[in-house]
């Protein structure tokens, strides 16, 4: 029963990792940029909500912060990152690493290194009793559902909408996309906007579940990255599965001994790298 519980809790946490990761996966998929500041943007959004929620209610704070994240993503892409794309793979990597350091230290300057959390009141402690020993928290369940819905939504967006098709076209062949009248720079801006929007959702839910500090960005990035690699590059559903596998790995590890949780997740990642480097659900060729 303890193990069933650990697996279910891990599964639900996996939804959170998928949220932290799907933007990373999308930005890499479209522009081949690995956004080293992805986790920091998640934490930034969480701090944004904490700051706004002091003056207004939580829902409004979230509704205000998420579009700002998207706008920030669009502006950073068009203002800074687009210029770096032609200069090889190293430049965008260095720039996003610099973003990471800048965000962390700005947050440290404003909010200090004290732990904060996004207060969601009664919602945080609500739970459904399944059986005598098994309870499912409302917040983890909600997070998981948001993770699945966002993956579903992004998938639908990429396959069925006009902008989504343009995104895939830019990803497959920017030159040809340009020929048929797609403005790659604008499309890249949209990709980063969606990426940071998703990072923001992940960050806010992360902040509701646990306490966080400005230095938590890198750990969020590492979990997101492990989800992407475990799931397989270039596949949104893979990223969701990767997040779930990572979550289950961590919660089983933590069940053995609390301090082993994160380490167990890392070991799952290493095992995948050794035995299945293409990930569990790699993008199929020609699809």
């Amino acid at each position, binding site marked *: 029963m303890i193990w069933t519980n650990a697996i279910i809790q891990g599964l639900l946490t996996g939804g959170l990792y998928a949220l932290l990761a799907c933007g990373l996966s999308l930005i*890499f998929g479209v522009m081949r940029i690995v956004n080293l500041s992805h986790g920091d943007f998640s934490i930034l959004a969480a701090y944004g909500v904490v700051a706004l929620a002091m003056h207004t209610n939580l829902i409004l704070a979230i509704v205000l912060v998420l579009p700002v994240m998207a706008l920030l993503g669009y502006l950073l892409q068009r203002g800074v990152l687009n210029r770096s794309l032609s200069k090889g793979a190293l430049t965008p*990597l260095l720039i996003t690493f610099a*973003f990471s350091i800048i965000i962390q230290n700005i947050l440290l300057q404003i909010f200090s290194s004290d732990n904060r959390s996004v207060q969601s009141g009664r919602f945080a402690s609500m739970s459904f009793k399944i059986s005598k020993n098994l309870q499912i928290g409302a917040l983890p369940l909600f997070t998981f559902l948001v993770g699945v819905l966002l993956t579903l939504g992004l998938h639908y967006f990429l396959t069925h909408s006009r902008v989504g098709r343009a995104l895939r076209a830019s990803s497959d062949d920017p030159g040809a996309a340009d020929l048929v009248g797609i403005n790659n720079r604008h499309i890249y801006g949209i990709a980063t906007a969606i990426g940071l929007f998703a990072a923001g959702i992940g960050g806010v839910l992360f902040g509701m579940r646990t306490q966080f500090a400005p230095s938590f960005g890198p750990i969020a990035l590492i979990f997101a990255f492990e989800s992407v690699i475990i799931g397989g590059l270039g596949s949104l559903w893979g990223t969701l599965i990767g997040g779930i596998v990572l979550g289950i790995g961590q919660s089983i590890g933590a069940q053995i001994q609390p301090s082993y949780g994160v380490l167990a997740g890392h070991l799952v990642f290493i095992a995948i790298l050794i035995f299945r480097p293409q990930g569990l659900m790699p993008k199929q060729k020609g699809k």
Partner: protein
Amino acid sequence: MTITYAVSRGTKINKILPFVFTALTIALIALPKVFAIPYQVKFVQAFILIILATMWNLLAGFGGLVSIGQQAFIGIGAYSLVYLADIQGINPFIGLVLAAVICGVFAFPLSFLVFRLSGGYFAIGTWVIAEIIKLFVVQVTVLGGGSGISFGAFAGMGRETRIAAIYWSALAAIFLTLLSTILLMRSKLGLALTAIRDDQTAAGVLGVNVLRNRRTVFVLVSMGFGLAGGLVTMSNLRVQPDDIFSVNYSAIMIFMVVIGGLGTIEGPIFGAIFYYFLQDRLKDYGTWYLIILGLLGIAIVSLAPEGLWGWISRNKVSFFATKYRISQMNKEKGA
């Protein structure tokens, strides 16, 4: 009139430089006899920065392997030294050399793991490895666990002797790393690395074993990071997992190399010295200092990607003759 060309290494300046470097080396060896302890300590810090920048540049600038997890080897080097000198009772200076060797021994199998990832994912992959090693070290009670361990091998030594000994160790380490970098870049491996960095596929087609060459440089560089880690332990007299495995090391290394000029030998040295003085000036500003470093880094990468050294030298001056250049032998007067 036919024009003939000559292929040479380096420029005229390289004919005088060996003498300058010899003089500089002798001066640096004699330094503890002249300068007081605080200056020696400062030199040790600068030497460590130069070693770190040179090694990171060798990996990323020449090997094309952008890693943000090399603190793994700084940490392994640091803890190896503590283990060998304090727990096994080995002479700390021999321990420093052995610590570097241990880093190489760790780097070899780890390379098989991280080389499965490429580009940006390689960068994060190395970082995860560093985190994992840290998590393991924290579990080891003999090494002090999460709160760290003091380095006691110098306990019986007087302060003056100790600082001078650390200074000479750092000098030997920087001499060794710089010399091996120059020799490496003049060797066949250096040529292969440059080819791989410029075009991996083309180099592979021409018969360069991409993976093997990269693995060699990864292992060699990790030994250099191990030396640096050992030196950090010697000068701080304490190792703490959160500090020694901190990703800030990567941030600093990237900053120094990018500011100085990626892919040259002079650039990172220049960048390290620049960073040393910058840090000295700005350290009172706390978090602003890192924000400024980040902004400066973005500006340099976007506007002057060849770095300060590239900007100053305009690719015409090279202290270390590692590149081939073509010059016209018989210049026509007035042409």
